[in-house]
């Protein structure tokens, strides 16, 4: 692997600038003549906008303009789109209401923008916003899915009667019913998957700069996928054609999915900068983040699992209500369908599955992909059910899982996904060993003698990552392909620039992607730089989410590298007067195999650019690009086991141990992988114990600040015990599966299974706050 190659724990190159405060985030950028936007947002969950009086604000110092939703409509700026078409079981397309970037007539969630003030400074814009008078007529609101689908509930969109977006099904209902008819045992469970606010450290921000002479826009924005943003902004929102719109996503401080989507604020900033003839900057504050960044999860599910007399699963039935909030965000429709129900087989052999998913509008912040996106909801459901089944069937939970594991690969599940490889026994074994599963009973007894309730919880997760084969997702309704592109530019002196469509917002691509080059060419990573996040520099690319950057993005780089190496070998062979087939690359040199004849890589690069002595007919230069479209998803999987204690007096949970045994295929940089797992686990634990975005019955958010929304802190989580059991992914040449979401997918079930084990009661919802746990312990 070499000291900097694949598998090496290389310290992150990008951290020098982040740790020394030299990162360049959108809010750090200041343009000449820049104005500042402040949005006027609805305080009501549902209301008619009767009028907006901005006359007083317009007279205030430094105010450039006050723009409203009606002006957006007049200027024909398009409504926000949802990019994945889902078809209901009756064959009808999903039913969507229009989502204008600022509401001209009706607001449907607290925080929805109705107007924007553009002023010389942020403070002046805010001052003027207080002088804008918006006349609202309040309408009845509904925040809860069950309430929203009841007859007589307040209706959000005329296009979606009954607030229902779709009623979608997957799997074989007849076969599943037949399995239940013959079942020896049926295990039932109702679970809620709590709504979360993503809370990236850097709030969203945008700067739009319109150049009237060139009729060209530049947008600096906090995006995980700047090319997709450009495509959507030009193709659907009528902002500008793609070649007249440059989107730059510079350093981005975390995304977790919430920065995939194109939000109203970017659209308005672009439109406004043309209207006022000056650059327009908007930086959200934390309250705006809570109110307007797409939320995650929010499912209510009833599930039943059928077992035969040997405790083998024979069927699985699921009915889920997914709360979409007030509008359909960019990829929201796919999250509770193709990213959720297709994973319902878990790690298990399940002959028949049937799932129904009902998407529902409510007067709440729109919900979309958040770290794991659909897969945490699936994994939580299955793993809570397996634990419930073990308790009901009176068998050891690990043994019940083992008895039902898929052991033959490839494995076609009844819900589309075809698992390529894995070794579920290996990760279960590793985790059980790491936590000393066998010794648990003694530890539980010991804890009991000290007045503590000790529990252990297992979670065996699987996810579909490396998103995604374009043809497959296209056939399921996706509006885009999910390949990735790369370009490898070798400079005349042999330094290398890698241009990638992946986007790093915490993942460490500037290090891991260089490691591939170091591995193949023996070039030090200091000689390689990664260029990303600028549509003017990088060929079209699809961005970063769904644990896809290594499995898809890095494979595209590999493909381009192979082309570079092939051309470089030809040049080296020509210079060394040898046959191309005899050239090997070793430690940064191109060698004639079996001889001491060699030429250093920088000399090959120089030869390519001086072009004094190239093989006949060869073009000068050394620069290649590639597009890579995966042939299948990848399937990271593993086992998490959590051991904890509950204080019966207060219901408070304290961790004793948390082990994670993951199979991510090949690891490029184990240190960075560990960081990804730690972060994911903390988010999963946060969901299990602390986090919950709550609305009251009128749709008012009650957790719109960190004083109420409990984000996990260092002392809320244990020190993690990580290990890896590896099966290489056969679908890509590097054997990579991806590691970005696993922790968030697998952790929450382990925690809840452990708490319910500790307290001896099975029904406990997330977040398992001390109050809730105490109440459950003391319930009759």
């Amino acid at each position, binding site marked *: 692997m070499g000291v900097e190659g694949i598998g090496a724990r290389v310290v992150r190159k990008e951290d020098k600038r982040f740790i020394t405060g030299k990162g360049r985030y959108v809010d750090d950028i200041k343009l000449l003549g820049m104005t500042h936007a402040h949005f006027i947002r609805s305080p009501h969950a549902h209301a008619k906008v009767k009028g907006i009086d901005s006359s007083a604000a317009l007279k205030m110092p430094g105010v450039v303009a006050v723009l409203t939703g009606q002006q957006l409509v007049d200027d024909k700026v398009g409504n926000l789109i949802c990019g994945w078409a889902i078809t209901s079981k009756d064959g009808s397309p999903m039913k969507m209401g229009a989502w204008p970037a600022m509401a001209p007539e009706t607001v449907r969630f607290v925080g929805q923008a109705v107007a924007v003030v553009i002023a010389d400074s942020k403070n002046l814009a805010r001052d003027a916003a207080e002088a804008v008078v918006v006349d609202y007529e309040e309408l009845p609101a509904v925040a809860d899915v069950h309430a929203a689908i009841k007859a007589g509930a307040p209706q959000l969109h005329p296009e979606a009667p009954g607030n229902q977006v779709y009623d979608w099904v997957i799997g074989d209902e007849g076969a599943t019913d037949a399995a239940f008819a013959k079942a020896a045992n049926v295990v039932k469970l109702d679970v809620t998957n709590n709504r979360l606010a993503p809370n990236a450290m850097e709030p969203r921000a945008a700067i739009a700069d319109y150049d009237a002479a060139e009729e060209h826009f530049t947008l600096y924005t906090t995006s995980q996928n700047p090319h997709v943003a450009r495509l959507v902004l030009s193709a659907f929102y009528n902002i500008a054609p793609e070649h007249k719109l440059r989107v730059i996503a510079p350093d981005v401080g975390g995304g977790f999915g919430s920065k995939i989507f194109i939000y109203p604020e970017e659209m308005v900033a672009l439109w406004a900068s043309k209207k006022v003839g000056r650059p327009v900057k908007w930086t959200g504050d934390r309250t705006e983040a809570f109110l307007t960044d797409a939320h995650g999860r929010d499912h209510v599910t009833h599930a039943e699992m059928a077992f035969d007399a040997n405790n083998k699963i024979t069927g699985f039935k699921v009915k889920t209500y997914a709360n979409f909030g007030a509008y359909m965000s960019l990829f929201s429709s796919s999250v509770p369908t193709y990213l959720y129900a297709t994973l319902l087989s878990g790690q298990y052999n399940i002959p028949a599955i049937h799932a129904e998913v009902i998407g529902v509008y409510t007067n709440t912040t729109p919900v979309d992909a958040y770290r794991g996106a659909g897969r945490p909801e699936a994994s939580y459901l299955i793993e809570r059910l397996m634990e419930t089944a073990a308790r009901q069937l009176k068998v050891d939970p690990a043994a019940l899982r083992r008895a039902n594991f898929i052991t033959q690969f490839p494995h076609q599940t009844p819900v589309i996904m075809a698992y390529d490889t894995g070794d579920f026994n290996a990760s279960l074994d590793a985790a059980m060993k790491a936590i000393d599963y066998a010794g648990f009973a003694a530890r539980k007894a010991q804890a009991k003698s000290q007045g503590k309730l000790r529990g252990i919880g297992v979670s065996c997760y699987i996810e579909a990552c490396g998103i995604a084969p374009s043809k497959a997702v296209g056939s399921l309704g996706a509006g885009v392909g999910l390949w990735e592109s790369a370009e490898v530019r070798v400079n005349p002196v042999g330094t290398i620039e890698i241009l990638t469509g992946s986007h790093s917002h915490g993942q460490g691509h500037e290090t891991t992607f260089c490691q591939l080059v170091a591995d193949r060419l023996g070039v030090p990573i200091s000689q390689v730089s990664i260029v990303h996040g600028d549509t003017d520099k990088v060929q079209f690319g699809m961005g970063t989410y769904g644990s896809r950057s290594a499995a898809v993005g890095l494979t595209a780089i590999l493909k381009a590298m192979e082309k570079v190496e092939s051309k470089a070998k030809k040049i080296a062979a020509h210079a060394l007067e040898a046959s191309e087939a005899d050239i090997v690359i070793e430690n940064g040199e191109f060698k004639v195999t079996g001889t001491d004849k060699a030429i250093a890589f920088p000399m090959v690069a120089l030869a390519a650019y001086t072009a004094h002595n190239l093989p006949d007919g060869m073009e000068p230069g050394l620069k290649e690009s590639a597009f890579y479209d995966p042939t299948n998803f990848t399937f990271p999987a593993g086992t998490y086991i959590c051991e904890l204690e509950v204080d019966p007096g207060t219901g408070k949970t304290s961790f004793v141990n948390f082990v994670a045994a993951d199979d991510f295929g090949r690891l490029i940089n184990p240190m960075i992988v560990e960081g990804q797992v730690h972060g994911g686990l903390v988010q999963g634990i946060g969901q299990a114990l602390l986090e919950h975005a709550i609305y009251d019955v009128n749709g008012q958010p009650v957790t719109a600040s960190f004083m109420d929304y409990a984000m996990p802190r260092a002392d809320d989580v244990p020190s993690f015990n990580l290990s890896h059991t590896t099966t290489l992914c056969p679908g890509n040449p590097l054997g990579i599966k991806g590691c970005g979401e696993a922790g968030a997918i697998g952790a929450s079930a382990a925690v809840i299974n452990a708490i319910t084990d500790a307290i001896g009661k099975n029904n406990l919802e997330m977040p398992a706050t001390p109050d809730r746990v*105490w109440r459950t312990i003391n319930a009759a």
Partner: protein
Amino acid sequence: MYQTTYHRASSVDEAASLFGKSSEAKFLSGGQTLLPVMKQRLASPSDVIDLGKIKELIGVEAAGDTLTIKAATPHYDVATSDVAKKAIPAVAYLASLIGDPAVRYRGTIGGSLANNDPAADYPAATLALGATIKTNKRSIAADDYFKGLFSTALEDGEIITAVSFPIPAKAGYAKFPHPASRFALTGVFVAQTKSGDVRVAVTGASQSGVMRVGAIEAALKANWSPLAIDSVNIPASGLLSDIHGSSDYRANLIKVMAQRAVAAAG
């Protein structure tokens, strides 16, 4: 934040006179409450008078039977003060539980008591120990000082200069932190005075702010032990109820935290 004029006072008298001269002044101590409120535009003082650099307002002293913490002393200084740890360890411990390190480095006892947040920690110690709040005008007994949520006996422009705690025979504090804010979801301070009296104050739990709990005081007076509290009944009525803790949960916490505070007091 709205525009405001910042003044750095160098003495209590100067601070008081600056206050008298401006239309809507606010004193600034650690700024851990005032500044966030101003940033959210929920307060718009014309003038902000900083007390934080006034030398006579900073320090922890013990003399005879009294521990005195001057008003602008940050929580961190109290938590790490050898004087406080020796005189009333429970007070130093309480200070070490406030918020997070950043809050403890800036937030002060004077600001905390002037603000009288119903979930703040210091009010519990102040009331349970029967402390005296010293101001630039008078001395106020703790029993007369707390007037419900965010409200105190302080008059407009009155400056807290110090808090004097009688050193008790025994004292203990147990806090169940709010999962998000880390204020007290319920905190209980128990004290046994040198004359044998018992005072118990609870913060975070009541709809009317910090309060004494007579039933627990009586039980502990009869028998200073955690077990003595087992049979005490704490009604949920009048207690706060929110997404992090229902009123009956808080009623339970009052008992459990009181027991742990007694155990800690020894």
